[in-house]
């Protein structure tokens, strides 16, 4: 009997993987149908995709490099989602973080890396966080739909960047529409020589652990989750709903902003138009597939990084437009939603299966687990 709780938790964790895996598998099958319908060879296409993502050591490090921004934005969206705030603004917040370090990374000189880099990341967190807190505040204060406000703020951010790279922050020769390259001390160190794999991945993993602790082991995390499961009940329990919505959105934006900074400090070293190919939007699928669990975001962001890297190779090798990856990301969302129904039923069945073995609260806990699915 002593081994039971352990076995149960392993089984529970395994059960958690079933639906996301099925969703991904289904999206691939549907993607294959789309590819075949468009007149391409699906086997060749997906072989090129897999080869691009995992085919060699260098391809795999590229996948990790690509996964890093998804990791940050995915974490951000997952945290906002915990407070039932639907942050579609990760894209704009990502840009704001990148914008902050594209400026400070050039303006601040003479600091050693171990001071400058944390400083820049903190600045990006503040920039992205402020940009996320605004829609959070508008939602909390006047009930403005955060979906609309964040979408609008994304477009505003894109226009601000488009202006600033030709205006105040344009590179000194005023020739290219981009910012000047950041100072060397601001560049993130490369982890594996000869690749582009940089320290950002490690920072991202640390952030995932930190986000997990925040959400599940702190009072603030508890309050955010309470607001997410029911604002009215949380209000009755004495939790300040508005404050927690704003905080969740600010932390969410901060993480997305850090993602923008890490991408700039680690990969591009400067800011330009289309700096993000939609890392903020894909983050919604990343977070949903991970069931808003920060540690699971590590896995789902890796998947999305692989998909993006593989899709580029697929476009080169099989001449299938890389946009296929966006279609498959969206399909993942719908399969997650569709299968959630079966997951609910399964969780209820599981909870009611052996009520005596699992204690009196098991059924209630099962219901809660069922209800927590997006």
């Amino acid at each position, binding site marked *: 009997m002593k081994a039971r709780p352990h076995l149960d938790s392993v089984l529970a964790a395994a059960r958690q993987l079933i639906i996301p895996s099925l969703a991904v598998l289904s999206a691939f099958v549907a993607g294959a149908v789309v590819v075949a319908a468009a007149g391409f060879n699906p086997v060749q296409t997906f072989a090129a995709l897999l080869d691009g993502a995992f085919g060699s050591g260098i391809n795999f490090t590229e996948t990790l490099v690509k996964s890093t921004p998804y990791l940050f934005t995915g974490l951000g969206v997952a945290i906002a989602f915990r407070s039932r705030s639907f942050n579609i603004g990760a894209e704009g917040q990502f840009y704001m973080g990148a914008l902050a370090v594209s400026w400070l990374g050039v303006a601040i000189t003479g600091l050693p890396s171990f001071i400058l880099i944390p400083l820049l990341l903190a600045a990006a967190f503040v920039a992205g966080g402020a940009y996320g807190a605004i829609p959070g505040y508008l939602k909390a204060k006047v009930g403005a739909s955060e*979906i609309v406000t964040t979408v*609008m703020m994304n477009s*505003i951010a894109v226009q601000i960047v488009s202006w600033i790279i030709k205006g105040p922050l344009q590179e000194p020769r005023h020739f290219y529409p981009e910012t000047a390259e950041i100072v060397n001390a601001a560049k993130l160190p490369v982890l594996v020589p000869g690749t582009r794999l940089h320290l950002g991945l490690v920072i991202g993993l640390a952030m995932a652990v930190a986000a997990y602790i925040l959400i599940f082991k702190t009072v603030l995390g508890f309050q955010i989750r309470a607001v997410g499961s029911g604002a009215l009940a949380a209000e009755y329990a004495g939790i300040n709903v508005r404050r927690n919505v704003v905080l969740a959105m600010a932390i969410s934006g901060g993480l997305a902003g850090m993602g923008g900074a890490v991408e700039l400090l680690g990969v591009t070293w400067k800011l330009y138009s289309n700096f993000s190919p939609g890392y903020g*939007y894909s983050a*919604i699928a990343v977070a949903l597939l991970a069931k808003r669990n920060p540690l699971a975001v590590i896995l789902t962001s890796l998947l999305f990084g692989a998909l993006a890297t593989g899709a580029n190779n697929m476009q080169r090798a099989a001449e299938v437009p890389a946009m296929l990856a966006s279609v498959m990301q969206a399909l993942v969302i719908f399969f997650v939603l569709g299968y959630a129904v079966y997951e609910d039923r399964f969780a209820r069945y599981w909870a009611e299966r052996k009520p005596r073995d699992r204690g009196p609260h098991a059924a209630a806990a099962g219901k809660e687990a069922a209800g927590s699915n997006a």
Partner: protein
Amino acid sequence: MLEPLFSLTSIIALLSSTMRTTAPVLLAAIGGLFSDRSGVLSIGLEGFMLAGAFAGFVGAFYSGNLWIGIAAALIAGMLLAFVYAYFSVSVGSSQAVAGTGLVMLAAGATGFLNRVLFRSSGNFVRVTPFQPVAIPGLSRLPIIGQVLFTQNVLVYLAFALVPLTWFILYRTALGLQIRSVGEHAKAADTVGLNVTLTRYACVLVSGALGGLGGAYLSLAHANTFIEMMTAERGYMAFAIIIFGKYNPWGAMGASLLFGLADALQLKLQVAGVPVPYEFLLMFPYVLTLAAMVMAGKTTAPAALGSAYKKN
């Protein structure tokens, strides 16, 4: 330089242009109004519009007939709307998630298909757009003749839908049914109204009109399809419905305000005012933000956003 900007001809041109920039968002907003009033968030409008813009262009381009393009846009919008209705009404998914997923699906699919179909043609593919149709007699009226009665047929249609929608929603049994389902699904169900069917129908209407609004952009405005050409107009339509207090006349007023903002920023860009064009492009987005703040918690249908499950 600013002087000719405010001459009479210039103002007439601005107002006439406002009618045309209003039409696509108004079409989408009227469609979304049906969906919202029946209790289903019209958050997928951007996706319906994108699908309509693409399907409309493809249909018109290959057939050489704009009306076949319109039919294709209606079908594409309704197909996506059916997917959205399935998840938000039948499955009972979070409408925010399903709607956003839908927009991503439409963005990905139209981008993918656009590259599959038109990647080989190096030169710009375009269609001959809808032309202005002068209404006999009325178009000769001073000023308003040019502004109101010398427009393309989709503009007339968009504005004609406003009183029609008002009539349906507030003066027919069908409208009462839609509003009842959106206010209190259980009560509506109890008195024998079919909640699921009503909501499906309303979401399909929002798909059709959203698709039509998108087709306006490719067939009457840009004369071609450009990826992401809707530029968040679907989300603006969603905001317009709220700002217009879930009423067709309010939606028309709000759409005109947005149309004016859009027409004005276009005009200022062309006039070459000494402001970076990015700030002019930002204007409609900032206006939407302001509208959302001003609208605040208005008179949303009580059951808006919540799925209804029969017990």
